[in-house]
C-alpha cells in the first residue's frame, strides 16, 4: 500500500482492432485507489474488451495500460494476476469437480512455494475461511462446485477473486442471469468488497447500477462517452440517447 492515493489503473489512448473493426477507439480511463467504478454502455460498446485488454486476454493495437506504475500490455495473463489484478467472467467458470473450499484454496494459492503446493491441504487457511465467510457459502464448503446454482457460482467466483487478494478486481456482469434475491445479495457482497478493494464492474443492469454505483464511465462505440457520478450520468442527454436509441429495455 505504498502507492499514493492516485491512480491504480491508468489507461491511455487505448485502441483495439478486430479484423479491421475498432472495438476500442482511443479510450482514456483512470481508476483511483479504493474506487468503485461502474463501466456501462450498450452492447458492443467495448466494455468487456477493455477488461480483456487489462487482463492480458486481448492485445491492444495502440495505447498503454499501467497498473500501479507497471505497464501491463504484452504481459501474459497469469503474470498480470500475479501483479494483483483479478477478474470474473460473464459465464462463471468454477471447477466443478473440486469442492467449494478447494476452488477457493486454489485461488488463494498462487503465491505458495512449491513444497506447499506438493502437500495435501489440511484444514482451511485464514484467507480461504475469510472468503468463504464473505460469500456466505460456508454450508456448502465441502460440496463439489458442480452442484451450485448459477448465483452461487457467481459468488464462488467472487470469493475466489477475494481469496487471490488482488489490488484491483474486475467484475464482468456479476448479476447477469440472476434472480431478484440473488441480485440483492450480490449487491451487498459488492458493497462489502468495495469497502477495502478497488473494484471495476461492467454491468448492463440499470437498476443495479442505480442502487450500488457511485462513479460511472459510459462507453459507446469504443469511446468514453461520459464519466461522472451516477446521477449526473443518468441525467446526461447523450447517455439517454445512446440507450434509448438502441433499446428501451436497457434503461427501463
Amino acid at each position, binding site marked *: 500500500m505504498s502507492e499514493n492515493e492516485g491512480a491504480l489503473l491508468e489507461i491511455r489512448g487505448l485502441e483495439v482492432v478486430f479484423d479491421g473493426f475498432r472495438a476500442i477507439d482511443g479510450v482514456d480511463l483512470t481508476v483511483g485507489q479504493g474506487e468503485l467504478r461502474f463501466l456501462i454502455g450498450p452492447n458492443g460498446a467495448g466494455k468487456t474488451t477493455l477488461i480483456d485488454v487489462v*487482463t492480458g486476454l486481448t492485445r491492444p493495437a495502440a495505447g498503454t495500460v499501467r497498473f500501479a506504475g507497471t505497464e501491463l500490455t504484452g504481459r*501474459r*495473463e*497469469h503474470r498480470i*494476476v*500475479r501483479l494483483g489484478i*483479478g*477478474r470474473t*467472467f460473464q459465464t462463471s*467458470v468454477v*471447477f*466443478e*469437480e*473440486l469442492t467449494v473450499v*478447494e476452488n477457493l*484454496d*486454489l*485461488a488463494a*494459492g*498462487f*503465491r*505458495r512455494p512449491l513444497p*506447499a*503446493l*506438493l*502437500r*495435501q*491441504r489440511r484444514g482451511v487457511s485464514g484467507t480461504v475461511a475469510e472468503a468463504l465467510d464473505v460469500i456466505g457459502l460456508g*454450508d*456448502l464448503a465441502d*460440496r463439489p462446485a458442480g*452442484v*451450485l*446454482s448459477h*448465483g*452461487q457460482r457467481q459468488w464462488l467466483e467472487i470469493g*475466489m477473486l477475494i481469496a*487471490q487478494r488482488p489490488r484491483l478486481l474486475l467484475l464482468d456482469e456479476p448479476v447477469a442471469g440472476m*434472480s431478484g434475491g*440473488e441480485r440483492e445479495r450480490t449487491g451487498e457482497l459488492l458493497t462489502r468488497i468495495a469497502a477495502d478493494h478497488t473494484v471495476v464492474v461492467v454491468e448492463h443492469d440499470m437498476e443495479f447500477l442505480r442502487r450500488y454505483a457511485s462513479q460511472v464511465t459510459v462507453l459507446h462505440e469504443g469511446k468514453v462517452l461520459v464519466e461522472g457520478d451516477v446521477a449526473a450520468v443518468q441525467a446526461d442527454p447523450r447517455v439517454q440517447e445512446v440507450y434509448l436509441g438502441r433499446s428501451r429495455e436497457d434503461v427501463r
Partner: protein
Amino acid sequence: MTAPGTALRSPALRARLRGYALFAAVALLLLVVAPLALPAFRLDELAKYLCFAIAALGIGLAWGQGGMLTLGQGVFFGLGGYAMAMYFKLHDADGDLPDFMVWSGVEKLPALWKPFESPVVAIAAVVAVPVAVAAVLGALVFRQRVRGAYFAILTQALAAAFVILLVGRQGLTGGTNGLTNFYDVFGRDPEAESTQRTMYFVTAAVLGVLYLAARQLVKSRFGRLLVAVRDGEDRVRFLGYNPATVKTVTFAISAGMAGLAGALFVPVVGIISPSLLGVVPSLELVVAVAVGGRYALAGAVLGAVVMNYAKTEFSEQWAGGWLYLQGALFILVMTLAPKGAVGLYEQVKDAVARRRTPERPVPAQSVQGEAA
C-alpha cells in the same frame, strides 16, 4: 453389524481406511500370494504386466488427471528400455563391440553408447532422458496452447517418427530386432528362475512406490491444480498459475514413469525393440487405462494388468480374435462406460446405496433449494 466408533462415522476417514485396506490386500496378493501360487513363467508374465502398469500409471496421471491424451508413451518406455539395454549390451560385450554392431559392420563404438558403459549413468538416463524429452516437447507445445486432440496427434507422430528412426539406424539401435540376448543382469543370469523372481519383486515394489507417490501427488494441492487445468485451463491462468508449467511437469513425470517401466521391462522380458513402442503399443496402453478407468490411478493399473493378461491369453488361442475383442471392448467402453471399470463399479455402488435409502434426498436438489 458392529456398531461403528465415532471416528469411523466420518465418511472421509472411512474412505481412507478402505483405501489403505485395498492397497494392503493388493500388495499381499502381489507380493505373497502370486509368487507362491504362480509357476515361474506365469510370474514372469505378471512382472511384464506390472511393467505396463507402471507406464499406465503415468498415463493415468497425464490423461486421467491432467487431460493430456498422450499417444506417445511408447517413446518414453523405449527411451528407458534402450538406456537400460545399452548398458547390458556393453556389459556383456566387456570392452568389445556389442554383437549386433559387429553383424551390422560397425567398427567403433558410437559416441552415443559411450556413457552407457557406466551402470550409474544408464540407470540415471532411464528416467532423465524421457523426462528431458517430455519436458522439452511439453514446454514447446503447451506454451503455445496446443492441446487436446492436437497434442494427442503430435505425440502419436512422435511415436511414429521414433520407431522409424530406431528401425533405420540398424548399427546404432539394432534396427527391427532391437536389443536382446542379455547374458548378465547385474551379475545374475537373466534366464535363471531366481533372477526372474527377484525382478518380479523389484517391479512390484517399484509399482507400489510409484502408485503411492502418484496418489500423494493427486491428493496434493498440485493434484487439485492439475484437475483444474484439465477442466478449465484458461480459467486457471486467471488464478495466477501458468497451466503450461503444470502440464509440462506432469507430462514429464508420466514420461519418467514410462521410462522406468521400460527399463524394468528389459531384464524381465529380455528384449526391447521398436515393435514394442510404436503407435499401436502406445495406443494399447491408453486403451488399457481407459478400460480400467482413466480417472482413478487404480483403474489405470488394473486396466494394464487385465488387458495385457487378456491379450496374452487370447493371442495364444486366436490372434485375430484378440483384435476383434480389443476393438469391440474399446468401442463398448467408450460408448457405454467412458469412466471404465472403476467408474462402472462406482455407478453400481451408488445405485445400490440409493436403493437402500430411497427416502434420502438427492443432494443436488437440496442445494438448489437453499439457493432459491
